[in-house]
């Protein structure tokens, strides 16, 4: 037990927290953008998973980490494009669209693995980015993106329009701005961010494992909601979830006497408890979930 506690007060543990938090952070940033524009982002899970898959496969096939990361972003954008086509263009139910994409991504990645590598569970291993934090380009990309989204949403022309379109799309239309265009942009950019977050699920472990997203997209969405749809705070909540996840890994390796099946639930239970208990001072974007 004391070994377990001591292991939490190390630089290695801090690095582990950051490494684990990155997919949450990037997915939450992407989710914040979509949702501020009024599009419920339940498809974060699919974006993470497709990003992880694309990064591993393209990284393995080309031997280039950069192409892997770019491919992850593109995969996230592709999922986002389908989502936007259904929910922005056709006005379909955004929750159903998101769930369909998540389920589809699970099957689709397994199918492609099977077609290309003859088995549906793993992509071939290759030299990824390693488990270090400072040597991992995704860490730096993530840090830059947090700042970029905070500034972009709060202080740019597009950011103002995104914030307006999630509240009063009719007012945005009356100001002569295309509501659909703003929503498309927000969802696509959000997809790229979540896709890059997915790369962090495969590149540090040198390959893609089926269902690598493991519900992180939903936890990231919980962070978006608890942050009051504010990107900086959402990133901080994701660090908290990363911390919970890292603690449960240490509990497993140090054998604190609880079954792994229970400790693994820690971040999810934390998300549930916080969602219920955290005071909701900030109302969601008023037009969230409503097609124009």
């Amino acid at each position, binding site marked *: 037990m004391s070994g377990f506690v001591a292991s939490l007060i190390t630089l290695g543990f801090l690095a582990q927290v950051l490494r684990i938090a990155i997919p949450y952070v990037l997915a939450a940033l992407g989710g914040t953008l979509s949702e501020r524009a009024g599009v419920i982002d339940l498809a974060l899970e699919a974006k993470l998973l497709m990003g992880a898959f694309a990064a591993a496969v393209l990284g393995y096939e080309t031997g280039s980490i950069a192409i892997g990361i770019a491919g992850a972003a593109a995969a996230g954008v592709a999922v986002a494009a389908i989502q936007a086509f259904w929910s922005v263009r056709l006005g379909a139910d955004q929750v159903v669209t998101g769930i369909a994409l998540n389920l589809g991504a699970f099957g689709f990645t397994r199918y492609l693995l099977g077609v290309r590598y003859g088995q549906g569970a793993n992509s071939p291993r290759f030299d990824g980015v390693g488990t270090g934090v400072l040597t991992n380009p995704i860490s730096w990309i993530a840090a830059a993106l947090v700042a970029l989204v905070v*500034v972009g949403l709060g*202080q*740019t*022309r597009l*950011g*103002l*329009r995104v*914030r*307006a379109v999630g*509240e*009063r799309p*009719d*007012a*945005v*239309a*009356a*100001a*002569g*701005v295309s509501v659909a265009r703003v929503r498309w942009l927000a969802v696509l950019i959000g997809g790229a961010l979540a896709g890059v977050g997915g790369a962090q699920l495969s590149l540090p472990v040198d390959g893609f494992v089926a269902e690598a997203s493991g519900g992180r997209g939903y936890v990231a969405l919980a962070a978006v909601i608890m942050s009051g749809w504010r990107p900086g705070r959402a990133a901080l909540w994701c660090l908290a979830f990363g911390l919970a996840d890292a603690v449960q890994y240490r509990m497993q390796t140090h054998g604190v006497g609880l079954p792994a099946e229970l400790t693994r639930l820690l971040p999810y239970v934390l998300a549930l408890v916080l969602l219920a208990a955290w005071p909701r001072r900030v109302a969601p974007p*008023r037009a969230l979930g409503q097609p124009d």
Partner: protein
Amino acid sequence: MTAPALRVRASRRFGDCVALADAALEVAAGTVHALCGENGAGKSTLMRVVYGLERADAGVLELGERVDLARHDVAGAQARGVGMVHQHGMLVPTLTLADNAALGHEPVRGGRYDRAAAARALVAAAARLGQRLDPDALAGELTVGEQQRAELAMVAARATRLLILDEPTALLAPREVDALFAMVRAFAAGGGAVVLVTHKLDEVLAVADEVTVLRGGRTVASWSAEVTAAEIARAMIGGEPPPPATRPPPPRPDAAIGLAIDGLVVPGPRGGGVVDVTLRVAAGEVVGVAGVEGNGQRELALAIAGLAPVARGAVAVGGVDVTRAKVAARRARGLAHVPEDRHRHGLVQGASVADNVALGRLGEVGRGALIDRAAVAALTAQLIAAHDVRPADPSARVDALSGGNQQKLVVARELDRPGLRAVLAVHPTRGVDLAASARIHARLRDVAAAGAAVLLIAADLDELLALCHRVVVMYRGALVGELTGAALAAPDARARLGAWMVGATP
């Protein structure tokens, strides 16, 4: 002769419903043009076509030059100097006034949106209209009057050719209306054209140079000279207007108290709500509550109806305390509620007329857990006939009825029932055509004459002055003034009530 600022002909249908049937309007530069008509006549639709928010199926549009209607959009309208202030406002509540003003035309500096420049531009635009405002205030935290003035400043700053105001006075106190009209006249004097969409005839006569009337999507009359209110009303209705409402006979001096409100405190959004209201309405008396919207009237009504929790104080119907009673118990006690929002609290839009009648009268048509369909049919037929609800079809879906007929249905169900002790009517004629309004007024008068205590909450002073024995003014959650008897009939009653509505102390 110079080309008019606006010339438009347009047709537009939504499914089976014809909104515009070759409606035409021509507005000269430097004039204020009133566009009149009943609800659903197509006034707003026509103006939305001009502003590029609504497509026309066919038509012609000239804004100084010929405009291709098929390609017309908001950006194109704005580029031609057209601005529109919308009926329900078009401010994003979570953004500041400066952000709202900038939306779509954001000043950019060094790649970022230049908020300071947007704020300076808005303050300057407001100053040109003689207003002062705080550009950093969140739009959602302002009163509707403040929001509307800010919106006018934003729109007028960009509109050089044509300013469209869609029902701008619906939420304003009389004094605010005067200020608005002064701004409108100033804009026209500067060479701009103004279209004032309204159905209030006194406003038309006060401010407009020309008048056009729409009915059923067609232009039915247009005057450029002197015209009387009666002529406009006849054109709007397509017949003789109903006689004005009359007051019921005064309550007997020994009449019992039908509705009593004691020291009522009801929390509302942003610290608003009801601060402290004590009011007694005698059986047979009609008491009006005037006030600018958002001064606690909504919370007062919901608390009386049993739809909002009461922090302190008491509500009694016919001498029995109902402060903690559920809605059904209050209704059983003889309280009727004609709610402000008939979509939310009055009717189930997707259900039939008969089902909506049954829902409000389960005590009469319910047999244990079952509903007596024969009783529902009989009651519905009786209400439809007595209140002229159209179409006279018990199986019609409520959302297929016009606003006026929906409201007639609510009034019929609520007021046409036995054991009525107190009536709470909130904006009962809002969005309702003149003929239906007259019926609703007559109905309120009749239930009062039959001994019910009527509390009428309305923004329309004419309605209150015509029907009420007594009018109180609600301001910031409290009652600040009261007129009764001779003072209410005096010529200065409107002005006194109007002053109290914006915070003057009696």
